[in-house]
């Protein structure tokens, strides 16, 4: 079973040299800590930064340098600032290679719900709808089941959608899965997790094709 850092670490193995990557708030943000050695990855933040670095040292925080999560950050050498229209030109124009974001539900056809729970205060979709409608490559980082123990990998989303048919991969504490036209294809088991456990935690159609390898982190 993976913890949050484990999920981030598994996702980081999908990073490729030269990639431009947009990381959502939460677990996705942790992916930046596990960029494999020897490759260069540039992080985009949709409020207008490319080449985002780590948090600033104490006392060096700058109100003018924040990320999309409104946290103080730094810029790496070679980075660039731009405006919000240009930022979404990058996203909508498919110049960003990989988007990693969290989800409340994912359907077996790749629909994603992550912005609204009916009856609860709605905070807004922020940039999520643009990101999922535009990205060539979307990986969802989330828990396999919700707090009530119900599967978040469903035949059909029950919550209001953020986007349709867009999720390509999912990494949870239990598994690494691909969304195919036939359903969720199990690619890897988290360390110490059985295929049976994953099957029990997945409500949407799960494809188990042969022996499923355990993740190498």
């Amino acid at each position, binding site marked *: 079973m993976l913890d949050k850092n484990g999920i981030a670490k598994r996702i980081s193995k999908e990073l490729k040299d030269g990639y431009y990557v947009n990381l959502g708030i939460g677990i996705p943000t942790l992916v930046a800590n596990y960029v494999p050695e020897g490759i260069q990855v540039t992080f985009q933040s949709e409020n207008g930064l490319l080449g985002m670095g780590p948090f*600033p040292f104490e006392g060096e925080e700058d109100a*003018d340098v924040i990320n999309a999560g409104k946290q103080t950050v730094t810029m790496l050498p070679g980075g660039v600032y731009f405006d919000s229209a240009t930022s979404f030109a990058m996203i909508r124009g498919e110049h960003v290679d990989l988007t990693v974001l969290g989800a409340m539900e994912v359907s077996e056809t790749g629909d994603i719900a992550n912005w609204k729970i009916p009856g609860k205060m709605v905070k807004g979709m922020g940039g999520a709808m643009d990101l999922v409608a535009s990205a060539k490559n979307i990986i969802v980082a989330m828990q396999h089941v919700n707090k009530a123990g119900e599967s978040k990998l469903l035949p059909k989303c029950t919550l209001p959608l953020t986007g349709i048919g867009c999720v390509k991969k999912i990494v949870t504490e239990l598994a690494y899965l691909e969304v195919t036209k036939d359903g969720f294809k199990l690619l890897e088991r988290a360390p110490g997790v059985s295929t049976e456990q994953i099957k029990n935690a997945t409500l949407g159609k799960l494809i188990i094709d042969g022996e499923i390898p355990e993740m190498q982190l």
Partner: protein
Amino acid sequence: MSSKIFKNAAEALQGITDDMTIIFGGFGLCGLPENCIAEIVKKEIKGLTCISNNAGVDDFGLGLLLKKRQIKKMIASYVGENAEFERQLLHGELEVELIPQGTLAERCRASTAGIPAFFTPAGYGTEVAEGKETREFNGKMYLLEQRFYADFSIVKAWKGDTNGNLIYRAATRNFNLPMAGAGKITIAEVEELVPAGELDPDQIHTPGIFVKRIFQGEKYEKRIEKVTVRSRE
């Protein structure tokens, strides 16, 4: 000779009255037109429709207008971090229209650029697309989104000159740039106002033609919403 230069926020905001639609620059609390917001609170202008990416926090940014019940309708992409907002919304005291962030940015840019409508993929298949025209281009589905028609745009820049040319610093460019020119009248407040000719013509982000009024803000608090730091080893 005509001049774009105004003494302060109070003078620059002349003509803003109740029930107008106003576009506000900034992202979160970053790059906010602080002096104009404070002055609108002071002027007690009411019934505003505000177009802005966020709604501020309880005691800063547009949160200050919310607290005084000056906002009738909020058009934004993300309105978390604000308890008073939630209270007014749940009690039906506030109208809210939520828009995908990229669509919001592009609608502002379209308003500035005289593009009445454009197609975008954001929100296709979701409730955002309800009632909107959809169309396929090159095998992908898109929705038709329209520009805004706002009375004023209020933006904040780092440096400005007396011709209205603006330079933003770091991540404060955000919505300020596409919003500069989006309203019938654009007001820019700047940290430093310099004579025309002092800014490098290659480095100006917003050409002065988009800005009708400019003033140097009295002071900038530049509040940080989430201070995140790492310790020095």
